């Protein structure tokens, strides 16, 4: 671990915050080889997969939004250097903890066994190369999202390591996330007190927009908010929160501002059609406020205090938002800082410290 510099610049006043979303990535597939089971290491080498990087097209590293210019590295993809993460973020911010969320092709491969093998390797790599080297780091368990049984096995394997504080899914995969086939993941997560983080993005089994394949990254990226609405509606309608009453869900990189309108719509519609989902026995928005949290960045509200105030009022609770920088993605500049303008001081403390500790029991215990 490096020396902690005093918090400075745009991060001042944030020491002790919990950063609920940062993105390390492996520099390349070769870095994973030592962390794979021997069988899968040989499999990868025989297929020449170690020459691929398995980036996901949800987050092409070359797209400007996916790395702040001053956080790009001389070599390797943004987010692939622990030393750079320390210099760019951990030392100036001085967080109590920062949660690593890996977005990688491993979690969305069509072959379930290969996907599970690579996810095990990724988790091992993250523990050995990052968590072991900086005790401010925590992580989500990367799982093969299309194989709930194998995902649950990976959760069981890693749950004893208390540095893993969450299970990571993507908003759009093969099935709407509430479907019963996905329940082994929720069962395992609930059993171990691990929130399920649902990250923006897709395994592209269907277009990110419900209307079909778009031509531009702009469309895909903006449509991810629809993907979150769909995932949340599915969790609510399928009764996941009745079945797993202790489950917490964290929507990561959702943009946040789509939520009030979506809740108005589901509340309103529920009143008339609730009989088809009789287990959904209270206002869906109430369940969301009880079970669902959202990371802060990217934050889609216009940059003025009045808009922020309106939005916070519409969210209807000061417990929903969790501080995040989304390092190395580019949502704020060095001079600007990671928080929206006009955040009331009491709320600032909730967002940066209290809400994350309440959401992630393993952080509070640490």
């Amino acid at each position, binding site marked *: 671990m490096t020396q902690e510099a005093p918090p400075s610049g745009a991060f001042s006043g944030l020491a002790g915050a919990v950063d609920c979303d940062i993105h390390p990535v492996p520099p390349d597939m070769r870095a994973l080889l030592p962390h794979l089971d021997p069988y899968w290491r040989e499999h990868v080498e025989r297929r020449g997969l170690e020459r691929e990087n398995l980036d996901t097209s949800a987050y092409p590293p070359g797209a400007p939004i996916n790395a702040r210019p001053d956080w790009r590295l001389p070599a390797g993809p943004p987010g692939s250097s622990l030393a750079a993460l320390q210099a760019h973020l951990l030392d100036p911010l001085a967080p109590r903890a920062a949660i690593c969320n890996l977005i990688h092709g491993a979690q969305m491969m069509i072959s379930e066994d290969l996907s599970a093998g690579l996810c095990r390797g990724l988790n091992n790599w993250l523990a050995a190369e990052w968590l072991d080297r900086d005790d401010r780091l925590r992580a989500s368990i990367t799982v093969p999202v299309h194989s709930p049984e194998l995902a649950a096995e990976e959760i069981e394997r890693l749950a004893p390591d208390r540095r893993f504080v969450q299970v990571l899914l993507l908003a759009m995969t093969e099935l709407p996330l509430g479907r*019963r086939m996905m329940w082994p993941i929720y069962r395992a997560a609930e059993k171990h007190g691990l929130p399920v983080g649902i990250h923006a993005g897709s395994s592209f089994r269907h277009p990110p927009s419900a209307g079909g394949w778009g031509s531009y990254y702009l469309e895909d990226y903006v449509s991810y908010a629809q993907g979150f609405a769909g995932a949340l509606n599915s969790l609510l309608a*399928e*009764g*996941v929160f*009745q*079945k797993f009453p202790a489950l917490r869900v964290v929507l990561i990189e959702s943009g946040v501002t789509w939520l009030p309108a979506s809740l108005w719509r589901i509340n309103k519609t*529920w*009143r*008339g*059609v*609730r*009989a088809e989902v*009789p*287990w959904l*026995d209270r*206002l869906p928005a109430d369940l969301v406020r009880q079970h669902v949290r959202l990371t802060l960045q990217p934050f889609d509200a216009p940059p003025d205090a009045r808009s922020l105030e309106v939005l916070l009022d519409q969210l209807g609770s000061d417990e929903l938002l969790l501080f995040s920088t989304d390092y190395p993605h580019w949502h704020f500049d060095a001079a600007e800082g990671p928080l929206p303008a006009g955040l009331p001081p009491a709320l600032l403390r909730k967002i940066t410290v209290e809400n994350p500790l309440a959401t992630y029991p393993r952080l509070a215990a640490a």
Partner: protein
Amino acid sequence: MARHVVAAVGEIPPGGRKLVTIRGREIGVFNLDGAYYALINRCPHQGAALCTGAIVSRLEAPMPGEYRLAQPGSMLRCPWHCWEFDIRTGQSWCEPEDVKARSYAVTVEPGERLARGPFMAETVSVAVEEDYVVVTL
């Protein structure tokens, strides 16, 4: 408050209803397994003729997939946006404390007693040997 005779007992069978107008107010009178209830014929949501809606059961589920058909025929479903109301109390299924249809007290009384008055019977003629459904309003 006055007592209004709205129907002879045999006129509204179990599961049946009768719409009446009392002092200019439209009211639905329901027979649930021999017990009578009255609700205003105006949905608290946007004013639809609530008492003309379908009579349904309480569909419940303590858990996803554990379906229960409870209290058959005890709910009224608004014809416009399908909000459900308990015929016995006027309470909505979704927000029982906050969204309610106005309900009225209903009794069954023998014609003999009614004959002693006072009561109002705008449309029903009362015979001493029969029982009547009476709404107080």
